[in-house]
């Protein structure tokens, strides 16, 4: 709906001021973190805006204090595996819900909505005990296992699949295509965008995941970036420089994704709700 109205000057000024202030407040911590990550230790305490003697020392220190390299690899592996598994399980499930009006469909939909509301803390205990018994503590599999399917992913894809024109599905059926080949050859190629943007949101969520990796990893060498970063937060010494450098590194992959796919990311977050 394109607005054709011209708003009065005070209203527009108010708009600019409020949005500019909120933008500034939102972006400042990130900018401040990025700038200070490049400052030498003593300069961080002066509060000059730009680094005067920019250095990479903080990054070197961060890498020597915690095994950041292997943590990043683990975070990548865990996030990618979870995203891939969640997509693979969500696509057929969402397709089934959107395509057939079968008995029990409402029940399944209700169950999925409920599981979206169940806090992680309510299931952590049995899951933790089970994974420890399986010997999966301190492994990427242990991080990934409880999150191979995502109710949220199914519900979100269901919305997109629901908008797929039924006549095309029926045409494919008349042509003799079975439900699976209809999904692979007709639905998926047209829904590439929806699936891809769900993938991005799932990846971001998995990359930022904190609670479960915290539970399931015991040794620092076997944990993810988020848990590594926590080491700097819990240590009593104030290693601001390396902490900010590590924090920046942990955000870079997601920020790069955001720079490239900003519109799609905002769009799919909007459609999806959170979690």
């Amino acid at each position, binding site marked *: 709906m394109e607005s054709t109205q011209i708003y009065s000057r005070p209203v527009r000024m108010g708009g600019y001021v409020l949005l500019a202030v909120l933008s500034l407040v939102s972006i400042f911590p*990130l900018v401040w973190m990025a700038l200070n990550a490049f400052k030498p230790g003593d300069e961080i305490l002066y509060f000059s805006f730009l680094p005067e003697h920019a250095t990479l020392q903080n990054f070197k220190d961060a890498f020597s204090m915690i095994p950041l390299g292997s943590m990043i690899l683990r975070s990548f592996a865990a996030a990618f595996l979870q995203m891939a598994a969640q997509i693979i399980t969500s696509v057929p499930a969402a397709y089934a819900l959107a*395509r057939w009006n079968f008995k029990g469909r409402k029940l399944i939909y209700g169950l999925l909505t409920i599981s979206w509301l*169940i806090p992680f*803390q309510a299931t952590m205990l049995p899951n933790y005990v089970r994974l420890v018994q399986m010997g999966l503590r301190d492994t990427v599999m242990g991080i990934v296992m409880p999150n191979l399917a995502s109710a949220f992913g199914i519900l979100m894809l269901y919305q997109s699949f629901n908008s797929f024109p039924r006549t095309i599905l029926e045409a494919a059926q008349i042509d003799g295509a079975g439900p699976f080949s209809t999904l692979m050859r007709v639905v998926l190629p047209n829904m590439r965008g929806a699936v891809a943007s769900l993938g991005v949101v799932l990846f971001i969520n998995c990359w930022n995941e904190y609670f479960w990796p915290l*539970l399931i990893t015991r040794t620092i060498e076997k944990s993810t970036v988020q*848990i590594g970063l*926590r080491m700097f937060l819990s240590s009593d010494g104030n290693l601001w420089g390396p*902490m900010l450098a590590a924090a920046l590194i*942990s955000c870079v992959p997601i920020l790069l994704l955001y720079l490239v796919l900003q519109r799609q990311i905002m769009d799919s977050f*909007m459609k999806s709700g959170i979690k």
Partner: protein
Amino acid sequence: MDAKVLRSRAAAPSFARAGALSRKVRRGFTPWLFLLPALVLLAIWVYWPLVRTFFLSFYSWNMLPTTDPQFCGLDNFVKLLKTPGFTDAVRNTLIMMVGILPFSVVLPMAAAILAKTISKRASGIFRALIFVPMIMAPVAVAAVFRWILHPVDGLLNQLLAHLGVEESIHFLNDPKWALGCMIFITGWKMMGFFTLLFYNAVMNIDDSYYQAAALDGATFWQQTVRITLPLLSPTLVFNTMLSILFASSWSFTYVDTLTQGGPLNATINAYYFMWDKGFRTSSSGLTSSSAVVFVLAFGIIALVLNHIGQKLSYYDN
């Protein structure tokens, strides 16, 4: 030979019927086949553990696989009520529900309504910037705020010193400030998301309403109160519900990394309680009984809000 043909002819219709039947059965099964992988995984990792948590809340167990849980009736729930921090957790959870609203409803709604009045390009850039905290890793956010809020090295205290505040404030170690800080960080993180939801709703309002109102000489303020706000009510209700239900859950990482529920339980909330008082102390009884209590409480709140929401929402039909 004749007999054979006859027999096969006689058999043919029944085969056909069996084929039709199996096709029918197969068609009934097909949706379930597609749902199976997701449902099995969710059953294993969500539904069944939830049921188990419920049962464990009536057992005492130290979580070691070598020992068996012992039935203890309602003991865990009695213990839960007596556990120091439980009432604090309930109180702080309630405070967070309300405290988050300026960040999840008031500011985002104002921003979304005003975003419509400025140039499309500028509003797009602003909205993209406000959204940035949403995708940042919560632990990285905690790291930056730990530094900004630090009593000696932190930017905020240095600024306050410039403004003449003599004593530095221990934001995260002072019970007066700590919960407010958790609410601010959580709200700051989620603000862009809610702005996005409101903006989408604002842009979906039919422009002809405004054109008609403008012809009648309605001011921007009158248009906002009479047209925009009523038509935003479903989004308003939805966002309020989301933030009330999830505020403490969103704050978990910050509480865990910055205050560990302290000082003096000032920042402990429902979600942190389940983890800290139960899991960390290997007490399955406290973890599961608090999970049961809080899940039920949140479920009831969700139902009530949903009911109120449907009455308050005004739809544009």
